C-alpha cells in the first residue's frame, strides 16, 4: 500500500495523542518498519492494521471508529496535499464520488502501475446515490469516513448510511447517500 496512507495514519495518531502515547502505540504495534514510513515508499497493509489495533487498545476506542475518523480527516489532507489528482470543475460531493473510480483511481494506476486501488462504483436511484466499495483490504470504515469527509469538504449536509453494520475487518460495503435523510 502507498506510503502516504501510513504517514497520514502516523500523523493522525500523533495529532490526537501526546508524543509519549503515540510512540507507545507505534512501539506496541511492533512494526517491521519501526514506524519509519515515508510517503514515497510502499508497505504491507497489515502494518496499518497493527497500528490501528495498537491505537485502539491503548486509547480504549473501537478500531472501526478510529478508521472512520481517520477517513474523515484523510479526505481533506489528500485534496490539499495532492491537488493534481483531483479533477477540475467538480464542485459537489456527488459529482466527485461519481468520478472517483474513473478519474482518480485511473490516475493512480497510471502513476503507480503496481498499485491496487479499490473498486468504487456509484449509481443514482430513487433520490439517493448508492456507492459500492470493494477492496482486498478491510478498510470499509476508512472508505465510509472518506465519503463523509468528502461531503464535509464540499460543505453539503448529506447523510451517509451504511447498508449493514460495519466492522474493522470488512473489505466491502454499500453506502447510501441521501440529500434529505433516509
Amino acid at each position, binding site marked *: 500500500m502507498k506510503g502516504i496512507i501510513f504517514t497520514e495514519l502516523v500523523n493522525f495518531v500523533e495529532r490526537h495523542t501526546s*508524543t*509519549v502515547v*503515540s*510512540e*507507545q502505540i*507505534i*512501539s506496541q504495534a511492533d512494526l517491521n518498519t*519501526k*514506524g*519509519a*514510513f*515515508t510517503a*514515497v*515508499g510502499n508497505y504491507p497493509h497489515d502494518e496499518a492494521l497493527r497500528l490501528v489495533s495498537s491505537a485502539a487498545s491503548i486509547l480504549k476506542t473501537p478500531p472501526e471508529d478510529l478508521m472512520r475518523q481517520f477517513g474523515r480527516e484523510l479526505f481533506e489532507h489528500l485534496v490539499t496535499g495532492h491537488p493534481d489528482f483531483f479533477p477540475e470543475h467538480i464542485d459537489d460531493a456527488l459529482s466527485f464520488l461519481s468520478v472517483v473510480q474513473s478519474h482518480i483511481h485511473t490516475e493512480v494506476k497510471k502513476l503507480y502501475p503496481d498499485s491496487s486501488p479499490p473498486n468504487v462504483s456509484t449509481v443514482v436511484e430513487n433520490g439517493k446515490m448508492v456507492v459500492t466499495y470493494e477492496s482486498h483490504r478491510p478498510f470499509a470504515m476508512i472508505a465510509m469516513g472518506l465519503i463523509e469527509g468528502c461531503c464535509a469538504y464540499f460543505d453539503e449536509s448529506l447523510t451517509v448510511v451504511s447498508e449493514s453494520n460495519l466492522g474493522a475487518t470488512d473489505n466491502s460495503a454499500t453506502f447510501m447517500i441521501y440529500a434529505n435523510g433516509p
Partner: protein
Amino acid sequence: MLDELEAMQRRVERERAARIEAETLLEKKSRDLYAAMQEGEKLTAQLQQAVGFQTRKLLNAQRVAKFGTFVWDIAEELVTWSEGVYSILAIDPAAEQLSVERYYESVHPDDRDALQKLIENGIKDGLAHGDEFQTTHRILRPDGEVRWIKGLGEFTGSDTGPVDFMFGAIQDVTALKRADDEVHQVRKNLEERLSDLEQTRESLETARDEANAANMTKSRFIAMISHEIRTPTNGLLGTLGLLGESNLEPSQKDLLRVAASSAEMLRVLLNDIIDFARLETGQIQLERADFSIHDLADQLVEFWRPLAEVSGNELNTVFDKRVPDFVHGDPARIGQIINNLLSNAIKFTKDGSITLRIGPVGTEQSVLSSGHLKIEIIDSGKGIAKEEQSKLFKEFSQVGSDESASNRFYDSSGSNSGAGLGLAICKALVEQMDGTISVISALGAGSRFCVKLPLGAAAHQMAHSETVAMNPLITADGRKPVALIAEDVPANQMVARLLLESFGCIVDIVDDGVEAVAACKRRKFDFVLMDISMPRMDGVNATKMIHTVSDDDALEPPPVIGLTAFAFTADIDRFHDAGMCDVISKPIHKETLYKAIQAVLQNKELKITETAASSGDTAVDIKALKSLTGGLSTQQVLDIVTQVSVDLDKLRRDAVMFASNGDSSELGRSCHAVKGLASSFGAQALAELAQTIEASARSGDAEAAFATTLKSFDPTTDAALAVYKNYLANYSSTLNDN
C-alpha cells in the same frame, strides 16, 4: 511507561530512519530517473531521426510532385508553409518569409481578386468545420514565369464554433494544364477538321445530288427526245406500210423493205432508249396481274421460230410440270425479258439449239410453294468469254459486237436494239421485280442465262376457254386487217403487236392519243387497239376525237377496242360512252383479243351499211346495191342478193377451175359473167378484177390471167360474199324487227 524524553528520542530516531529511507529511495529514484532520461534521449534521437527521415521523404515527395502544404491559423493570422510551397513560388526560404499577403502578391493579377474573395468570403460567411474548398489559379514567379496552381483546403475548428484552422495543399499543375491545353487544342483542331470534312461532305453530297439531278434531267430529256423522235418514226413506218400496199415494182419493193426495216430498227432503238431512261428515272411502274406463263412463252417462241430456223437453229420450250399455268406478275415486262434473251440467243447461235426452260427455283415441289420462277435461255452458240461476262449487263456495252449488221437487220422485234441496252434493261427490269439475272458461259460452249423472279402462282388457276381455232383474220373484203395500236409502253406495244401479227393483222403503232388521232386521219384502219392510260391524250379522249374528226373527213372512223389494266364497271361504261365498241383488260388474253377483233370486224359491216356513202374502198358498194334494189320489197331484195351470192360463188369456182386447167377462153367467158354481175350489185373490186383477167385472157397473156385468178380471185370473191352475207343478216334482222 516511556518518559517524555525517551519518546522524543524514539520519534527522532524513527523520523531519522524514515528520512534515511526516503533519501535511499530518492537516490534510487534519481538513478532510475537518470537512466530513464538517458533512455528517453536515445528514444528521442531515434524518433527525431525517424521523423527527420519521414519529413525528408515527405518534402522530397512534395518537391517531386511540385506539391506544397500549409497550415493557416486563422485567428492568429499565422501560416506555416512547407518547403514545397517555397519552391513552387520560387522563393528562397532563407531570404524571405512567406505570409498570406506575400502569397496573394505571387498570384497572377488576373486571378488574385477571385482567389482572395474565395478564401476571405469563405471565412467571413461562416465556413464550418470540415468544409473544403478548391481553386485553380496562376502564380507569377519572381523571374516572370507563370505557373498553374491547383489548391485544396479544409477548414477545421470545433463542431459548433467558428473555424480556426485551414489545412491546405497546393500543387503545380502547369505540366498537366499544358497537356490539357494541348489536348484541348488538338481536340479543337480535330473538331475544326471534322467540321471542314463535314462541310466538304455536305458540298460533295450537294454536288452529287446536283449531278444525280442533272443525270435524271438528262435521262428525262433523253426519254422525251426519243419519244419525240419516235412519233415521226411511227408516221414514217405507217406511210411506208401504206406505200407497200400500193402496186410497186419488185426493185421498189426491195428498197421499201430496206427503208421499212431501217425505220423499224430506229423505232426499236428508241423504244430501248426510252425504256432504259425510264427505268433509270424510276418512271416504270410494274403491273401486277394473273397471266398464263405458258401462253406468253408459246407466243414468244412461235414469234421467234422462223428467224431461229433461218439460222439453222432448233428452238425448244421446256416447261417443268411443277410450273402452274397462271402466275402473278407483269406479263409484258417478263415477255420483254424473255424476248431480249431469245433474240440474243438466236443472234449468236448458228446451226445449233436454243431452249427456253421454265421451272421452279431449286428443288421445290412447285412454283406455288417456292414463290420463285426460274426462266432459263440456253443456247449452243459461240458463248461469252469470262472477262466479257462482267460487262454483259452494263448499259451501252455490246459483247461480241462483231456480229454482222445483217443480223441486227433481221431483228425487228424490239429486243435487240444494237444500242447495247437490251441486257441492261433486262437486268434493271429483273431487279425492279426483286429478281436476279445471271449468266453461265464459256467461249465456244454456249450460254445459259438464268432469270429468277419472285412470281407466285395466281390466286386462281383459270381454266382455259375452249380452244378457238385462231385462223388468220381477214376483213369483209378479204384483206389482211390493218390495225392501229395506241399504247405508250413499248413492252405492251410489243406484246400487242405479236398477238395481232399472229392473227394475220398488219400493225401500225403509235405512242399516245394525239398520234392515234393523227394516224386515223392519215390512214384507214380496220380497228384500233387503244390503251386507256397514255400521256398527252388518253384513250377515251382519243376515241372521241377519232369519231368526231371523221365526220368531215374522207376516212371512215375505225372501231376502237379499249385496253385497260383496271377494268371497273363504271370505267367500262365511260369507255363505251366515248365510242369504244369493246374493252379488254390487260394482260391481254390471246383468245379474248381474237374474239373481240373477230366481232369488231363483223360489226364493222353494220357500220358500213349505215355509212355506205363514204365507202370507196370496200368489197361491195352498198350504196350502189341499195340503188339497184330500190323500190323492191325486203323479201325480193333478200332473194335477189341471195341469188347473186350463189351465182357469183359458182362463177368463181368455175373461173378458178379454168385457170387451173389452163383454159383461157373459158376463163375469159366466166370472168365476163362475173364482171357484169359484180358491177351490177356493187362489188366493184371483184368486177375490176374480173375485167383485168378477162382482158389478159383475151389479149393472149393467158399466164398472167391464170396467175391473177389463182392468187386473187378467191379472196376478192370471198370478201364480196362476206359483205352480201352480212348485208343479208342485217337486212333480215331489220325485217324481223319490223
